[in-house]
């Protein structure tokens, strides 16, 4: 095992957490914020559907899906940028039956 610089480890965590906060804020905006302002947003239309309804039926769901794929792609890139292998599997995983007994 190799020791990792503290600053690097913290930068990694901060980067990941910032991205998650941004994704969740966008998710909140397209769902809760639209519902809270539904009446005001109903005046313009997307594909012939009033905006508040469009967002509930389609816009929010599509945004959620896109956010999850962006997260999956960006997270892999962040891992690589920091020099980690996101596909690393720990053979001595503490989740196997035998060693979970030992950890108690």
């Amino acid at each position, binding site marked *: 095992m190799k020791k990792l610089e503290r600053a690097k480890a913290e930068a*990694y965590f901060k980067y990941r957490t910032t991205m998650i906060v941004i994704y969740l804020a966008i998710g909140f905006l397209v769902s809760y914020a639209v*519902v809270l302002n539904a009446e005001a947003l109903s005046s313009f239309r997307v594909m012939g559907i009033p905006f508040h309804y469009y967002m*509930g039926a389609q816009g929010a769901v599509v945004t959620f899906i896109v956010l999850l794929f962006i997260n999956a792609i960006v997270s892999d890139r962040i891992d690589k940028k920091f020099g980690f292998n996101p596909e690393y599997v720990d053979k001595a995983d503490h989740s196997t039956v035998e060693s979970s007994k030992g950890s108690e």
Partner: protein
Amino acid sequence: MIVDGQFIVSLSLIVATFALYIGIAIFNTAKQTSEFYVASRGVPPIFNGMAIGADWMSAASFIGMAGTVMVLGYDGLAYIMGWTGGYLLLTFLLAPQLRKYGRYTVPEFIGDRYRSDTARLIAAVATIIISFTYSVGQLSGSGVVIGRLLEVNTAVGTLIGVVLIAFYSAMGGMKGITWTQVAQYLVLIIAYLIPVIFMSLQLTSSPAPWLSYGEVISSMRELDQDLGISEYVVPFTEATKWQFIALMFTLMAGTAGLPHVIVRFYTVSTMKAARWSGAWALLFIGLLYLSAPVYAAFSRFILMTEVAGSSIDNLPAWTQPWINTGQLSVADENGDGVLQWQELSIHNDIVVMATPEIANLGVFVIGLMAAGAMAAALSTAGGLMIAISAALSHDIYYRSINPNASERKRLLVGRYSIVIATVAAGLLALNPPGAITQIVAWAFALASGSFFPALLLGVWWKRANGPGVIAGMITGLTVTLGYIFFSQSLGIQLLGIIDTGAGIFGAAAAIIANIVVSLNTKPPAQETQDEVTDLRYPEQMQYKNGEVWLKE
């Protein structure tokens, strides 16, 4: 029982799909405990995404949701956004970390992270209550479908479902179920999309209903205005804005806290795979959820233009069997011999099942719908049974009662508990305590009041401790159950929030209780806190004694 062409086509489709599921289950019979619960962590993300989709999309999604949107209009969209938005909370905040912590079940994570056997037992009991409540809804849903289809009593239909679920859950375990559920996802999504695409070709001459249904919504606006009824897309006609928000939150947080969904993220090998599984899962689930409002709009439009306005003595042939079931009622109230829109009353739960008949799509599509509905109900019930069996045999029996139990014995206890739980849920489903969607909503409220706060703080706040989580789970469950009870039976409501939105109060109370009690009791041991810090980093890194190590 009437044996006609429709009956034969529907039955053969159901039998053929069941043979496929059971065949897969037998082929993959689990041999080891780890395979039984988590499929050896070898399921690729794209297939795991499909399995999550099948696990997730239940009788409520498949049979009930389009009807709910049709009947409630905009207010029904809280279900669409809530049930999809939950995957954001799950994938961003919980799944990768839970995957890294690496346990078999959710109660096991809670017990080990908080170093508390009491917390694990409370969580195991909560898992059983939530999954059991949810599976009663599924079994009564499958009873409705089998009953209507085979034209036998609903009770007989429920019993057929019970036998099937008990058989393949107990035989295959998680691995059998994972591959069975991939097959079930494909069956249910094809069954759901074909009628929508056919209706779209009929009504808008476009094969892409998601892009073309705007014109139907616009036409309905004129129809509503002519009838002088409240317009389809106008918000908050059925309940307050706060009920919409509370329901949406409850469904989101409940999704992120449902044990049978979270356990799916243990079946992958890395945090990366957990993130990709979440993304694929929502894509596959989104196909159905994006189509439900289309379904709702098309069905409402056809009912308004082709059924309403026809002579009461000359209604389309499909109406009679549904009128007989009591789910559809037509009454010529003003006695003019013509059925008006206002005189037509259709129950939420039959919209999807009746639509192929309404739109005259032919026997094959109708049979396919029945097979898809069965796939939805059975796959979710199967996942729920695994969660119950894991809580009983692993968290309660192995971790608390008999820690020396051999692997064979634990598997046996797991299989017996599936059979017992399925039969018990089936007996309750013969006489269900509420409508399918209502029972399901209670399960979500309970999950958002108990597991969501416990997992969120367990992963993100290292100061949270055993007494804190015990106080949190008990407070959350009490507040949720209390609010459901008070709003249901005594009519006491806050801001117009009814029983289905109870989870928002449960989650808030649980988070506050966990924080307050944790801060007033001893902080967790350094080792425990280090374990939580370790969850910040990918699989390859390990946090120990204030240093981060890179494994090679």
